[in-house]
Each structure stands twice: as structure tokens, then as C-alpha cells.
């Protein structure tokens, strides 16, 4: 029977080819949106690894020229600022950092281990950072005075990164193995400080619920060390006591200003930053989704029209079949069957094409796509397109069954 349908489709190949192209493109559009949705849903189900309850960030800008002398001076000023903050009764903990959660900024680095290139996000923090964000430490320990004067650079990394580097071996206390850099690079000949893993956190997804799951590492920035050549953390994060209101911002700013006259301070609640970040993820996705919905609605109406038109054109053929004893269900099945075959042909090509995407050497954006989310998006898209085309054919196919053989045969 399918072979018969194929022949009928072939007989009207030019018109049907155009319909198949339409189904093909519709699938690509739907798949694009579904992929984003599936990836978001996948990401959303994973924990963040921190809590932002009662956490505020203060962006500090020393407005100074970036040279060694002013850096040392600024680091000292920041140390005093943090002490001032900790002395306030409303503040439970205060720390310095570079890239706080939902802060829009990111800092990435990479290690090459046994020829394997691994990207990771970095954050440099002071020791109190863990208390501010209630970072979910799983094994080992967090930064502390113990790390003062350490010859290696202490590192706290997330479980995913630990697994990527060390596999099943316990990473605590180990140095991250790094391949020597190619000699061509212009860096100073002195070897980079080895990085030693001292703790493992479950996760730290600084860009929030919808962001991809990536490798993460914390480095320690010790403001007490006056000889350090590290930059000054440009964000201060504080955890305030529950019930502290925005009214506290003003006296706090005045006190900070008293310590550092020339500096600028910008206070934000991480909760508000979260809302903004989620919006940035969701608004483009919702816009794309809305446009895709309209496109599909348009395709659905168009297909209905086309199938309807086809049915009215094939009155004589259908009439003849009815006269030769075909039942109503047969006609109905034939119209829908032809549509299903065309949809299948278009989808086979489309899915075969889309399935190649992960195999292509594409930019990093595509590397973030999770396999199961990708598969799920394809399945959902395929089912939706089948539903769409069959749904569009349903009413016109019903119309076809109403054709009376006697009338149809002396049509015209």
C-alpha cells in the first residue's frame, strides 16, 4: 500500500516536492527552538552550588591607573573596606571576588593535560567567599590561613572538573598535571606556579539556572599578603543579616566612602541580578519561541489549504475509487497516508542532516549542547511535525470521504 502511495506522490512530484521542502524547513525551525528549550530544561534541573539569600554585591572602582604602586595601595584600601564591613552589625560576612554569580562577567582559562585541552571558568576570591555564598564544599577544605606562604597555588575546583582531570583518583592534595607549553609562546621563561587541588565543591554555576554546566576553579586572593602581585578584586560580596532592608545601603555607602574617598561604589542585591540574568536568558528564547509558533501556525494553515485544494482536484480519482468499492476509511487513510509518507521523507532527510551537527568541527557554542537534550529535542520535533501534518490533513481528508461516487464521476 505504501508503494501505491509513493506512486501517487511521484505522479504529482513537483507540487509534492515543494510541500516536502516546507515540512523540511519547518522541522529545522522547530528543532532549533526545541534544542534551546531542551537544553534550558536540562540545565535548570541541575543544582547551582550556592545560595544567594541576603547576599549583596558592591562593585568597587578605585578610579586609579593600573600600575604596581597603585595596585598595592588599592589592595590595602580594599582590605580596610572589608574590615569596616565586617564590623557592621548588619553584615554577617564580607569577601572580595572578581566574577560574582549573575554578575555578567566571566573569566576563563584552560589547561592542557596529556594533550587534552580543557577550558574552565576561574574566579579569584578571598577566604570569606564561602561563608557569603554558602558554597557547597564536598571534600577537602576551603581556603584558609593554612595556605599562607604556600609554594603551590591552592585551588578549589568543582566535581566535573576534578573528574575530567583525575578520573576516579582522589584529587585532594594533587597537583594538576599540565603539559609543558610550546617554546614559541612569548611568555616569560619562568615556569608557571603549579596548581594544587585542596577542595572539591559540588558545583558553582555562576551564570545561573539556565547556564551550561562547565568546569570551575576558585583561586585564592590573599589581601593580607602585601607582596602579592595579584590584582585587586573589583567586587565585594556581603551577606547581610536576615531582615536588613535597602535603607542600610545609604549609611553603608557613607561608611565606605569615609574609608576610600575617591572610590565609587555600586550596590546591588544578587536577587535582583538573578532576575535580570534570567530575563536575559528567557526573553530571547521566548521571542524566538513566539515567532516559531506563529511560523508553525502559518505552515499549519497553509498545509490545510494545500491538502484541501488537492482533495477538490482529485474528486474524479476519489470518486472512481469509491465506485470500485473503496470504503470511507480507505479514502481517509489514503489521503493521510500520502501526507505521512511525504512527511517521513522530509523528516528522514532533515534528521539525517541535523544529526551531523555534533560531528562537525563547530565553535564552542555547540560543544555545550548536551547529548540527551539534543536527542530529546529531535524526538519532540519529529512528533510535533507528524502531529502537525496529520492534523492539517484530517479535515480535508474527511471532506474527501463525503464525495459521492455518482456525482464525482460526472464532475464538470
Amino acid at each position, binding site marked *: 500500500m505504501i508503494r501505491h502511495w509513493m506512486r501517487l506522490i511521484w*505522479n504529482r512530484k513537483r507540487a509534492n516536492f515543494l510541500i516536502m521542502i516546507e515540512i523540511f524547513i*519547518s522541522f529545522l525551525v522547530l528543532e532549533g527552538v526545541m534544542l534551546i528549550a531542551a537544553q534550558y530544561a536540562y540545565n535548570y534541573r541541575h543544582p547551582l552550588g550556592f545560595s544567594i539569600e541576603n547576599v549583596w554585591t558592591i562593585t568597587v572602582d578605585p578610579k586609579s591607573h593600573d600600575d604596581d604602586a597603585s595596585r598595592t595601595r588599592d589592595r590595602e584600601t580594599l582590605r580596610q573596606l572589608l574590615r569596616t564591613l565586617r564590623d557592621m552589625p548588619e553584615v554577617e560576612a564580607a569577601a572580595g571576588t572578581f566574577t560574582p554569580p549573575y554578575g555578567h562577567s566571566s573569566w576563563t582559562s584552560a589547561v592542557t593535560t596529556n594533550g587534552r585541552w580543557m577550558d574552565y571558568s576561574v574566579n579569584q576570591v578571598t577566604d570569606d567567599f564561602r561563608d557569603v555564598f554558602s558554597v557547597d564544599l564536598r571534600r577537602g577544605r576551603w581556603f584558609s590561613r593554612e595556605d599562607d606562604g604556600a609554594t603551590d597555588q591552592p585551588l578549589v575546583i568543582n566535581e566535573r572538573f576534578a573528574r575530567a582531570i583525575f578520573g576516579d583518583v582522589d584529587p585532594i592534595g594533587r597537583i594538576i598535571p599540565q603539559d609543558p607549553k610550546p617554546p614559541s609562546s612569548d611568555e616569560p621563561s619562568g615556569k608557571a606556579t603549579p596548581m594544587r587541588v585542596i577542595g572539591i565543591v559540588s558545583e558553582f554555576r555562576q551564570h545561573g539556572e539556565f547556564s551550561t554546566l562547565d568546569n570551575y576553579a576558585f583561586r585564592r586572593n590573599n589581601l593580607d599578603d602585601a607582596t602579592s602581585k595579584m590584582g585587586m578584586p573589583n567586587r565585594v560580596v556581603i551577606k547581610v543579616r536576615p531582615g536588613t532592608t535597602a535603607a542600610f*545601603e545609604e549609611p553603608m555607602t557613607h561608611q565606605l566612602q569615609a574609608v576610600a574617598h575617591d572610590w*565609587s561604589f555600586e550596590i546591588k542585591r544578587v536577587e535582583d541580578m538573578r532576575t535580570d540574568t534570567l530575563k536575559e536568558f528567557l526573553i530571547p528564547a521566548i521571542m524566538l519561541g513566539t515567532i516559531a509558533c506563529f511560523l508553525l501556525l*502559518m505552515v499549519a*494553515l*497553509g498545509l490545510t489549504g494545500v491538502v484541501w*485544494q488537492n482533495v477538490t482536484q482529485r474528486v474524479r480519482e476519489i470518486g472512481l475509487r469509491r465506485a470500485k468499492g473503496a470504503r470511507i476509511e480507505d479514502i481517509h487513510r489514503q489521503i493521510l497516508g500520502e501526507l505521512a509518507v511525504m512527511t517521513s521523507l522530509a523528516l528522514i532527510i532533515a534528521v539525517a542532516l541535523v544529526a551531523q551537527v555534533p560531528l562537525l568541527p563547530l565553535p564552542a557554542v555547540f560543544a555545550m549542547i548536551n547529548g540527551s537534550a539534543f536527542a530529546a529535542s529531535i524526538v519532540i520535533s519529529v512528533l510535533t511535525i507528524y502531529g502537525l501534518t496529520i492534523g492539517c490533513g484530517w479535515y480535508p481528508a474527511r471532506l474527501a470521504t463525503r464525495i459521492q461516487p455518482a456525482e464525482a464521476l460526472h464532475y464538470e
Partner: protein
Amino acid sequence: MLKNYIKIAFKVLLRRKFFTFISLFGISFTLTVLMVVTAFFDHTFGPMAPETQYQRTLAVQFACMYGDDGMWTSSAGYKLLDRYARGLTGVDRLSIFASPETVSSYINGQKVSSSLKRTDGDFWNILQFTFLEGGPYSSQDVDQAQFVAVINDATRQRFFGTSPAVGKTIEADGQRFRVVGVVADVSVVRSIPFADVWVPLTTAKTDTYKRELMGSFNALALAHDEAALDHIHDEFNARLAHVEMDNPKVYKTMVAPFETTFDSYARHLPNADRKSPESQGWKMVSTLVVLALLFMLLPAINLMNLNVSRILERSSEIGVRKAFGASSRTLVGQFVVENILLTLIGGLIGLVLSEIALQVVNASNLIEYAHLHLNPRVFLYGLGMALIFGMLSGVYPAWRMSRLNPVEALKGATR
């Protein structure tokens, strides 16, 4: 002739209303999306107050320095612009101003965040702001580092409610400014004029900015006439070749072109060449055209399908016309005109829908201080897109129709 085509087209449209509805739905939706996007671009880049002398202005809003191993892109520093951008031939006025920074103020314990822009005095001479109260600060005010401020209408509302603001004081980022003028709100997407509060750049907390080649400053030049624009771009470029770099081992070359806002934005595209001082705008244009065509593809095929499936409806008409000697080309012309008429009707509906969509965007406050609306420019773009869409979706079905065999067509049968 055309009149006849249009008459026939209307008859056909009214014949099967369900099909006309489907076609118009697709066309008007497609054109709505395209027109909303166009209106947004026009709002961002088109000439609009206070940039009334748009045709004669160029700005440096992007700077990049690079060497063999490194590249640093941001905005230019004050030193670069102050030392090298002044005194270019053909420039009537030059303004140097900072990119806006977010500052906090507290009003009765409530926090207010504002965008604060530090500018010089000529900023107010090049840009024609609408003053609701008072006036701008002068170059002398800037030289003497007077703590004066111009604020926008929204900021006046936040600080002073409905009462006049001139002469009163506002506190921002720990500094106190006396308000000298109030201007109408400027949309956040207009990168050159936008701010909530404008103050003299000499009121900055420290003067380290004066020593920086890279930083957060922009320059805006008002040319004597349009013919001088190319010259300004080239002369500044030539001067940049002799910039004294702070760290010539790492960064050897400086790129900071005088160009339009559109060209500056185009530099942030992934396919733009940031190291080139020449305009990258055409890359943005071509990217947008390709995206628009891709977006039109599905609706166009949808419309083609509908039209192809309706060929038979017209078979007797086509048969008669062919039998009386109409050439295929004449018929193709007729059907394309019909389709373009249909897309233009869809475009009109789309125009109404996009105005509604734009008002929704305005009301949603998604873009701060935006007054998105349709204007003659957007309308012309919309018309152009409707024509392209009409051609795209009309030619193939018209060709198919014109190829009907007259004998079969008269009989009203075909495959």
C-alpha cells in the same frame, strides 16, 4: 492593463476567502516581524533628536590596540582623543565624553540608580537636546570643574516629583551637583547622547583618566559639511600611526576610527575585522539581509505552495487567454503583479500589527525611554521587503501557471 490585473486580482481574492485569509495571515505576520526589527534598528541607528546633525557627525566609540600576540579592545582613553583628535581639518566642533556609568543616589532611604555621563561643554553644542527647564552647562563650567548637572525628565520625576528642578541639588555617587537644566528623555539605545544625568567631565573623582590611551571615552566630531567626513576619518587614522604607545613591545598599532554608530556596532560582529580602520558596516548590512531572506524563506515557500495548489482554479481563464495569443511572459507578469498586490495588502495589515507590537514593547519598558514607532523610513523599508517577498513567493507559481497547456487548461484538467 495594470488596472485590469488589479481588478482580476481582487476578484480572485474574494473568490475563496479562506485561502485569502491563510495567505494574508502568513504575509502580514512575516512583514510584521521584519518591520518591528527594522523599526528597532531605525530607533538605534537612524537620525533622531538630539542627534539632529546626524549627517555631519562622526564618532570614535571603539578603540583597539594590538601587537603580535595581544589585542585589547574597549573605548578610547581621554589622552588619545585629547591629544590626537583635536584640530582635524574640516571639524567645526569636537566633543569628548565618557561612556555612562551607573551611579546610586538615595532619596529618603530609597535607592535610585542612574546612568551618569561626564561630558565637555561642546557636547551640548553638537547635540540638540530639548530642554524642558534651564539650559546646558558651558565650556567654562567644565574648565572650572563646576559641580553642575543636566538631568532628564525621568530623573526629575524620581528626585523632585512634578516640581521644577533647576537650582536644586542632587547627590550621585557621593558627589553633589546643582541642577542647571532638564532635558527630555533619550532612549537608552542611542549610545552617544543617552544618560540620566550629565555632568562636566572635570568633576571625576580623580584625574587618572587624563593619562590613559584606552579607557571609557568617546569623541564626537561635527564636520563642516558632509564632504569632509571621509577626510576626518582618514586624517585621524594617519595621526594614529604616530601615537606614542605606553607599552610598544606588546601593543604596536592603535585603531580608533571616526565613524557612524552603525559602523561602530558592526565592529562587534564575529565576522568583523576589528583591526581594520575601514568601515565594517557592510558586513552588518549583508548579515542582516541574509537573515531577513532566511526568515522569509519558510513563509515564501508556504505561499508558493498555496499558489501552486490553486493553479487549477484559474485554468479556464489561462486557457482562454492563451488561446487568444497571450504569451507566457505576459501571464507571468500578470500573476506576479497579482501576488505583489496580495503582499502589499498583507504589508498594510503588517504595518498596523507592527505599530501595535511596538507600542507593546514601549509599554513593557523593555528598552528604557524607548519611543519605538513607525516612520516614513521604516514604511519604505517595509514596502521594499513586501515587494521582495512578493517576488520571492510569486515568480515560481506564476511560471508554473503560465506553462499550462491551453488545450488541457480549457478542459480544466491537469496533473
